[in-house]
Each structure stands twice: as structure tokens, then as C-alpha cells.
């Protein structure tokens, strides 16, 4: 990297005189670095850089934008709060600046701005006002009124036994919270430290809504240590089984604060924050009167009512809580008591009849298409409303017979799944078996095997005016048809069909969905470009065939899709997936693994609620030898979407490569059960089954693999040796050679094949192997030396082999776990190899390979 250096003048920069030995890419480093200092504040920045720098002096006097810092007040997992002087207004404010790491959460800036702007609209005497929202070095910040009176956390001891004062403060706080709720703003992190006091001693609620960013992304990036105190978190903030986060969550937190003020202790206290977190969903707090007999029982009842596990059993609003506290202050009877008694009776009733909410307005005006109802069995649909539902979506059939439209068979439904999976009360399982075995669900197979209670299938025909789609919903147990609807979409815009099926399904199933999910079904929610959507669906279909030519075509279509709609997260995700599966010549844009990783990261940034990008990232990490990292990505993907066949397949390959054969087999079996039409998962299932020695089953699976026309890597041929199916070897080597640097005359593998098959021919085979050693792929050499019984040579090659950037790694090295290569596994040096490759580190964390055991730090394999 020694480009032209226009500024060279001797050895020094012509602008600043810095030595050019520190130049970067031909540019003076010091000049570049100074660029970052410009405009960052006052003019003295230019001169102050000349002052010697020592240590880390205090904050005082430093500038952040238009603010001069006085001191640091608080530092949390989320932001840092300074006392600062706002230079334009000349007043002292509290300045909260986001910590740098939050920048890297998806859409953070945009979400932060939206939320803070909403909070800035709040105008209530009990809410700490926000003065200004801005950005510094890319870090969002906002300034607030500086509350002189400190936080409630500092007053807990002082308030002890001051029951009236406690009730008065909490009533005011509840009124402030009610004001925000009325404007659609949740607090999400109410705790004593967020309740401040002004100079007059009036409470001010601070940090509204900010915790949203923390809560939303905690699974993504944040360590538990940055989560903050869980003492005030509602059960639904920890586990979705308690329902959505809503106003009732804030009411819970208010109850927790009240409880602490009354008793001196938060309601639930574990040994550490994590343990507390685990206790919240189950532990029922003791009545405060047990520890503080002098505590007024009415206040105790009010706190406990707020702390009910189920949101519906708490106060209906913050206003209701405020009223109860105010009633108590006036000496009246509080409502908490009678409601607590009634609640116990109601609880049984509520369990019997799950609340059902029909989405009105979803079937609204303005549809461009017509919908004909053939039959509807409202009663049967109502009987199915026990939540959660498990819905199987089967591939639709192409009745028109035009193979040009085949891509619609699974694409429309595949895509629908993305939205349906957002409905938390609905477990959605995609099945592609519809393609080959229509009507399977009527036999109850789905119900039995996967616990499915309803199934959607359908067919479509292309007509002159557009597409006619017929969808049917079945009761999987009884085989009874619940409804059948026909949709007609205008030619060229498939988004209509997708939206209609989704809305009809949701209405028919009477599933309760939130606004956010409902919006996703909207015609334009996905993409405003009909052409982009069509290209995207075609590409999705092509990817499934996993052949060099279909992948190349899919990548082309997806690049066009992204050009039409750069924000379509699924297109980025699909492109990542496409590159992850890449076979054949390298794509013109560069290394396919880097492309896969790049597009997966973009997809995850655009939409963190889809699992596929994480599976692709996992696959890329696994290929590059970052086994622990790969495992974590896969777990993330599985947590988002445990029923995605592609995720299961990638995960299975990863598990296979680290020798966790049983786990891999389970994953791949599930993947194939969900999608029996994709060739690659079938092939890997066949390989795994061969490796574990179930020969009859393996033969059956290889037959299916051949029927599906899977691409045939050499590794698969080697796996089949175990079944005595040797005829594949001569056929499959040539395909392998096309991907290596081995020159033509050396590609004659007859000696090698003879050696693999006949022990007597091994010496000749080894000699041939040595002749290609310089050019051959190390993974190829390792497995083949092992097949020839030459553990020394295999391990010699492995000694220098790095699991980095090697496309052949998975395919080839999976065979180190096969019965034919046991000779290297039994070698004592194999354990060292596993150490060096990072396998042992992985096994320690996630469980060992089935064929290996770790004892006293050494590894023994068989």
C-alpha cells in the first residue's frame, strides 16, 4: 500500500510538518486526525492540541456541543448524565449522552429520535422537561431540567414510616405517568432513581421511554450487567408469557417503588440481579405488613395490587392507582381490597375463556380485488381459538400447469410466514411437503407429529386478468375444512394476495394482534414496488434449488430487487442466504462468504426480528473457524425462529462439523421434516445417517437425495463409501477438480480410488497423494490420507492447516467423523489438533463431540 503522495516535502507534511512516516494511504495522519477536531466546539481546539496531554483530567470545563460540562452525575448501562451549562441559555441542565455502543444497535438513532421527540411533547408538572435533543460525535443526547432535589433513591430511609408523604408522592408520580400513558408514551423503567425532586420538593419523573431501547435489544447485544436493576421490572418485561409490555407494566413498577418505600425493600430481591430477574415471574412478594406490622394495610393492598403477575389484575390505569392513593389520603376506602377478592374468583373464569379479539377494520374498504366466500364455519373457527395456535402453512399448488409460475407455489406462503411468525400467540410452521403430498394433514399426521391444530393450503391459476388464488384452512385433527376463500390479484402485483391471505387468516383465526403486526400485513408495508416483490419471490424460489445457475440468477434478481427497494430487509437476508449457499464460480462482486456476512448484517440492521440473517452469520462464522461465535449466532437465530428449515439446516452442518452428531441429526431431521423438497438438507441428513451407521435408513435417504438432484460434492461420495456405494467415486472426482488448482495431468484419480477401495493399493495411492500435495486443498488431503489409513500424513497436513476462509472445510472435514477415518481420531495427536482448531474450547462451552471425551485436559476420541 504505497500510493502516490502528493504532499510529500522531504519527510514532513507540507501542511503541519508532521513526519510522513506516520502517513496513511498517502495522507498525513496528523492532518487527518485534526479534521475530526474541527467544528467540534470553540476555536481554541486548534491551539489546545499543542498542550501536553497528561492523564485524564476532570470533566469540568469540557464541551459537548453547546454545553459546558460541570460534572458527571450518573453513569448507567445506557447513558452518562452530566451536570452542564447550556451556553446559549446560560442555565444549568442535566445532559444525558448515549453511551457509544448503542450506536451499533439497529436503527438506534432513528428510534431514539422518534422516542425522545414523543417524550419531549409531554408537558406535565410531574414530568422532568426535556429542553433539547441533539447529537455529538454521532452520539445522541438530550438536555433536561436539572432537578436540584436529587432522586427518590436517596430519600428512601428518610421517608420511612412517613406513610402520608409516601402516598402523596406516589399519587403525584402516578398522575404524571397517567399523563404520559394518555399520549401513548410508556416509561418502561420506573424506579426510585428515575423519580427526582425539584428545589421545592415536588417529584419529577425522568427518563421516559428511554428504556425501550434497552429492553428491545437486550437479547441482541447487552450483557446482563448492563441491564440495570430488575427489582422494578414487570413479569411481562421479562417473559412474553405474561403478555405485552404496556401501561400495566409501568403500574407494576410504581407498585414496586411504593412497596420499597413502605417496607424499605423492593418486593423481589435475589442474590444478584440475574437471580432477581429469574424470580420475578414466579415469586409472589410477601405482604409488607409481615415485616412492618405498623404499615397501614390499605397501602399494602394498593402496592400488592400493582404487583399482580397478570397485567389484567393490576389497576386498570395509573389514574386508578392515583385515585386509590388520594382516597386513602382523604380517609376513604380504597378499591384495592374488594378487587383483590373478586380477582381470585375471576381468575378461574378467565382461564376457561381466553380473551378473543376480532380485528375489526382489517377487512376494510379499498380492496382492489374481489373475495368470494364459499363456505365458512364460524362455529368451528371459534372452537379453535384456544391460544396458542399452531398453524402449518403448506406450499400452494400450481393448477395452471405453467412452470413459469412454479415460484409461486411456496414463495407467497413462505413470505407470509415472516409476518405470521410475528404473532406471538401463534406458532407457525412452514411445510413444503404440500408440493408432493397434498392432503397429508387430513390424515392427522401433522397434528400428531408437530402438534399442529390448523393448516393452510391452497392452489392458484394464472388467468388473463391476473392470478386467482384459492386458500383453505383445515382443522388438522379432524380433517375438517374450516373455510375456503378465493382471492384475485391484478397481474403483476402479488402483494395484494399476500396481504389478503394474511388478513383473512388473522380474522378467521381470531388471533389477537397488535397494531405493529397489523401494519406489517399492509400492502405497502413490505415494499412499495410490485416489481421488487415479484423479483424477490422469484429469487426465493430459485435459491431453494441450490444449484450454481439458480443461485447466480437469484443473486442477480435480488440485486435488482435491492436497487428497486434498498430497505427491503428480506431481500438483503435472501441475498445473504444465497451467497452463503454459493457454489460454482466466485461471484463477480467478491468473496461469497464476505458478501453473505455483509448482507446478513445489513438485513439484521434493517429488521432484527427475522432469524435468517443470524443463521447466515452463524454459517459464515463456522466456515471461518469461529466455532463459538457461530454457535451463538445460531442460538440467536433459533430463538427468533425455531421452525425455519434453513436455520435448522445450517445449524446442523455446524454441529456436524464440530462432531456433535446426535444434535446435528436432530436438527437436520427437523429441517427435512419441515421441507422435504430441498436437496441439500436431504443430502446432509443422508451423510449424517451414514456416519452414525444406520445403513438401511441411509440408503433410503441417499435415494431421495439423488431423486432431488442434489449437487454432488466429493464429500458426499466419500460418505457413501460406508455403504459400499463405490460407483460414485470416479463420477464425482472430476467435479471436485474443477474447484481446485490441480493441473490436468495430475487429475487422474485411478490410483487413489484403488487405494481407497483396496488396502493392497494404498502405497500407490499415497504416492499419488504426495504428488498433488502442493496444489491440493488441505481438507482434501487430510480426509484422504485418513481414508488411506495414513494418520501421520493426515496430521502432518493438519498441523499447518488453519480453519480460515476455506470453502471446503465443511464438506471435507465433516468426514473426519466418519467410520472410515477413525484412524486419525484414535491418534493421540488428534486431541492436540482439536485443541489447536478451537474445537476443545467449543466443546467445553457447549458439550463435547459424540466420539470424544475430555478428561484431565486431554482429549480422547474413537
Amino acid at each position, binding site marked *: 500500500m504505497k500510493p502516490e503522495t502528493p504532499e510529500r516535502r522531504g519527510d514532513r*507534511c507540507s501542511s503541519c510538518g508532521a513526519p510522513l512516516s*506516520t502517513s*496513511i494511504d*498517502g*495522507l498525513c495522519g496528523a492532518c487527518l*486526525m485534526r479534521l475530526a477536531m474541527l467544528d467540534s466546539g470553540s476555536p481554541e481546539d486548534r491551539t489546545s492540541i499543542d498542550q501536553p496531554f497528561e492523564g485524564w483530567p476532570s470533566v469540568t470545563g469540557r464541551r459537548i456541543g453547546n454545553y459546558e460540562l460541570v460534572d458527571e452525575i450518573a453513569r448507567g448501562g445506557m447513558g452518562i448524565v*452530566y451536570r452542564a451549562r447550556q451556553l446559549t441559555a446560560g442555565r444549568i441542565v442535566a445532559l444525558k449522552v448515549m453511551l457509544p455502543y448503542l450506536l451499533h444497535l439497529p436503527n438506534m438513532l432513528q428510534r431514539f429520535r422518534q422516542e425522545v421527540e414523543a417524550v419531549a411533547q409531554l408537558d406535565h408538572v410531574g414530568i422532568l422537561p426535556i429542553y433539547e435533543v441533539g447529537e455529538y460525535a454521532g452520539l445522541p443526547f438530550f438536555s433536561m431540567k436539572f432537578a436540584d432535589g436529587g432522586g427518590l433513591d436517596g430519600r428512601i430511609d428518610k421517608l420511612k414510616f412517613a406513610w402520608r408523604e409516601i402516598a402523596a408522592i406516589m399519587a403525584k408520580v402516578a398522575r404524571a405517568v397517567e399523563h404520559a400513558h394518555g399520549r401513548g408514551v410508556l416509561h418502561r423503567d420506573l424506579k426510585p432513581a428515575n423519580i427526582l425532586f425539584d428545589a421545592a420538593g415536588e417529584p419529577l419523573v425522568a427518563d421516559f421511554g428511554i428504556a425501550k431501547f434497552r429492553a428491545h435489544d437486550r437479547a441482541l447485544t447487552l450483557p446482563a450487567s448492563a441491564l440495570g436493576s430488575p427489582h422494578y421490572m414487570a413479569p411481562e418485561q421479562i417473559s412474553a408469557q405474561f403478555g405485552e409490555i404496556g401501561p400495566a407494566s409501568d403500574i407494576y413498577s410504581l407498585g414496586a417503588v411504593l412497596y420499597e418505600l413502605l417496607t424499605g425493600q423492593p418486593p423481589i430481591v435475589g442474590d444478584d440481579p440475574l437471580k432477581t430477574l429469574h424470580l420475578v415471574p414466579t415469586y409472589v412478594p410477601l405482604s409488607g405488613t409481615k415485616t412492618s406490622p405498623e404499615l397501614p394495610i390499605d397501602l399494602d393492598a394498593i402496592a400488592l395490587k400493582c404487583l399482580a403477575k397478570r397485567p389484567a389484575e393490576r389497576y386498570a390505569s395509573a389514574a386508578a392507582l392515583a385515585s386509590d392513593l388520594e382516597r386513602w389520603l382523604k380517609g376513604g376506602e380504597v378499591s384495592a381490597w374488594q378487587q383483590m377478592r373478586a380477582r381470585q374468583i375471576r381468575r378461574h373464569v378467565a382461564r376457561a375463556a381466553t380473551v378473543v379479539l376480532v380485528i375489526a377494520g382489517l377487512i376494510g374498504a379499498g380492496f382492489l380485488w374481489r373475495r368470494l366466500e364459499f363456505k365458512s364455519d364460524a362455529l368451528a373457527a371459534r372452537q379453535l381459538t384456544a391460544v396458542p395456535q399452531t398453524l402449518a402453512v403448506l406450499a400452494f399448488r400450481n393448477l395452471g400447469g405453467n412452470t413459469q409460475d412454479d415460484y409461486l407455489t411456496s414463495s407467497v406462503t413462505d413470505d407470509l410466514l415472516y409476518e405470521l411468525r410475528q404473532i406471538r400467540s401463534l406458532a407457525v410452521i412452514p411445510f413444503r411437503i404440500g408440493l408432493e403430498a397434498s392432503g397429508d394433514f387430513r390424515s392427522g399426521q401433522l397434528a400428531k407429529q408437530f402438534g399442529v391444530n390448523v393448516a393452510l393450503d391452497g392452489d392458484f391459476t394464472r388467468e388473463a386478468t391476473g392470478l386467482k388464488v384459492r386458500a383453505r384452512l383445515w382443522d388438522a385433527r379432524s380433517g375438517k375444512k374450516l373455510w375456503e376463500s378465493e382471492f384475485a390479484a391484478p397481474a403483476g402485483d402479488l402483494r395484494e394476495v399476500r396481504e389478503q391471505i394474511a388478513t383473512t387468516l388473522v380474522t378467521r383465526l381470531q388471533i389477537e394482534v397488535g397494531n405493529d403486526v397489523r401494519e406489517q400485513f399492509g400492502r405497502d408495508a413490505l415494499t412499495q414496488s410490485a416489481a421488487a416483490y415479484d423479483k424477490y419471490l422469484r429469487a426465493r424460489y430459485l435459491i431453494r434449488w441450490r444449484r450454481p445457475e439458480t443461485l447466480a440468477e437469484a443473486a442477480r434478481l435480488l440485486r435488482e430487487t435491492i436497487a428497486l427497494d434498498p430497505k427491503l430487509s428480506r431481500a438483503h437476508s435472501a441475498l445473504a442466504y444465497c451467497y452463503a449457499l454459493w457454489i460454482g464460480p466466485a461471484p463477480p462482486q467478491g468473496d461469497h462468504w464476505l458478501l453473505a*456476512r455483509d448482507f446478513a448484517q445489513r438485513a439484521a440492521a434493517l429488521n432484527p426480528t427475522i432469524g435468517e440473517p443470524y443463521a447466515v452469520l452463524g454459517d459464515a462464522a463456522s466456515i*471461518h473457524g469461529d466455532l463459538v461465535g457461530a454457535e*451463538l449466532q445460531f442460538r440467536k437465530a433459533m430463538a427468533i425462529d425455531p421452525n425455519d428449515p434453513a436455520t435448522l439446516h445450517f445449524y446442523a452442518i455446524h454441529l456436524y462439523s464440530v462432531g456433535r452428531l446426535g444434535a446435528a441429526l436432530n436438527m437436520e431431521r427437523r429441517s427435512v421434516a419441515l421441507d422435504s423438497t430441498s436437496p441439500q438438507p436431504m443430502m446432509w441428513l443422508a451423510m449424517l445417517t451414514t456416519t452414525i451407521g444406520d445403513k438401511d435408513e441411509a440408503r433410503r435417504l441417499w435415494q431421495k437425495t439423488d431423486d432431488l438432484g442434489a449437487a454432488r460434492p466429493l464429500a458426499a461420495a466419500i460418505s457413501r463409501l460406508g455403504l459400499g456405494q463405490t460407483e460414485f467415486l470416479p463420477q464425482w472426482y472430476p467435479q471436485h477438480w474443477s474447484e481446485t488448482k490441480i493441473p490436468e495431468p495430475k487429475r487422474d484419480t485411478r490410483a487413489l480410488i484403488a487405494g481407497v477401495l483396496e488396502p493392497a493399493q494404498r502405497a500407490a495411492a499415497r504416492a499419488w497423494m504426495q504428488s498433488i500435495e502442493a496444489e491440493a486443498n488441505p481438507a482434501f488431503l487430510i480426509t484422504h490420507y485418513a481414508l488411506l489409513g495414513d494418520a501421520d500424513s493426515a496430521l502432518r497436513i493438519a498441523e499447518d492447516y488453519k480453519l480460515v476462509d476455506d470453502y471446503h472445510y465443511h464438506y471435507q472435514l465433516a468426514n473426519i467423523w466418519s467410520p472410515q477415518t477413525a484412524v486419525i481420531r484414535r491418534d493421540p495427536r488428534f486431541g492436540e489438533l482439536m485443541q489447536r482448531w478451537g474445537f476443545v474450547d467449543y466443546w467445553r462451552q457447549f458439550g463435547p463431540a459424540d466420539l470424544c471425551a475430555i478428561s484431565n485436559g486431554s482429549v480422547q476420541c474413537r
Partner: protein
Amino acid sequence: MPLAPQGRFFPDTHWSLVLVAAQDGEPEGHNALASLFRAYWYPLFGYLRGHNHSQHDAEDLLQAFFVHLIENQTLGRADRMQGAFRGFLIGCLKYFLANQQEYAAAYKRGGRAKIVSIDVQAGESRLLEDTSADPAADVERAFDRRWARLIMERALGELESLYAARPEVYRALKGFLTLTDEARYSDVAAALSVSLSVVKTTVHRMRKQFRELLRREVAMTVSAPHEIDDELRHLIQVLAGELL
């Protein structure tokens, strides 16, 4: 493979939080610390080589040092984690080297596992290029300078990727990031067949973008926003040769 991951593969999390999480034994934290380490290991490697450790030893030491970062709980004390990641890392490394017998032995007992994947071969070749232009023998200053260059390269890499669609524009204009000689604008405008005002605007925008990217890059390596400017000043002094 690039030495440091490109900017878009940012370390996920603020460094001190990452360290605490890794020490808490959270797999996510371990992973995040590894990615942070992979981004910034090269100056440490240079430091070790500068102290006459062989390439092989330096690699082992780096791996063991990484384990040390995770396992030594005292490093996670809040007072140690104020300030720049740069200072923290080099401070810890020095402490580690002073006690390395103990750690190296533990590392060997653990089977010399490659805990974090780093390409020392690439680091070595880069070092060879680098020190040829480096008259100073002071290993610590060299560490700071390599650090500063790494930060700069990450920001420049980001900037370049912003211009990925028009690489020739980036190539032609990047020189103007530091050069104020506007007389040369017209040459470039002619070469790119655009008007002079387009060149001016683009250069102006490119400078702004770079400033922002660089500040973000630095933001990732400090523990609080008010430290950004201090760290920048320090790095400027390093690059200007004032601390040599």
C-alpha cells in the same frame, strides 16, 4: 484477509461493558471481547515484537493475554476502566508481561488453545513495512502510533465504503481530505469531467463524513463521550511526532 475487520464489522459494545460481560462468563461477552480484540490486536503484536519476542512467542503471548483479560477479575474494577481502551490495553499488557511466567504456564497447561483468531502472519508482514519507515526505536511510542494509524485506517476504510459505488471519485478526491490547495480542484474536475463546484461540494462533504466517521471510531474506544476529544488530541500529537 484484512488485518482489522472493516468498519462495518464494528465491535458491538462499548469496551468496558464488554470486558465486564466477558468476565462474568457470558458467552455473548466473550464473543464481543474477542471481536474487539481482533480489531485492535495489531499494535499489541507490534509492541511484543518490539520487545524481541519471536513471532511465535508473540502469538502465544497474545492468546494468553486474551485469556488473562477474561479471567483476571481485578481488571474489571471500575476505576481501571475509565479512559481509553488504548491505555487500558497497553497497561494490562505490561502488567501481564511482568507476570508472564505464571500466565504462560497456565496457558500452556490449557493446551495453547487458539482462543481468539488472529492472523499474525499478516501482522508480521505489515510490521516489516511499517518499521522500515519508523526511525524511532521507542516501542511504546510505536504502539501509540500504530494504534492511531489503525483507528485512522478503520475510519478511512469506512469512508471508502461510502464511495464504493464510485471508487474513482474516492481515489481522486481523498488527497483533498488534508490538502487545502484548491488550485488543484480544476485538474480533478477536468479528469472526472464534472464542474468545479461539484468537486468542491464533494470534497467538503467527504471531509465532513470523514470527521464524523473518525469521531465515531474514537468514540468506540473511550469510556465516555467527554473523553473523545482528549483521545483525539493525544492521537494527533502521536501522529504529529510531538511525543516522539
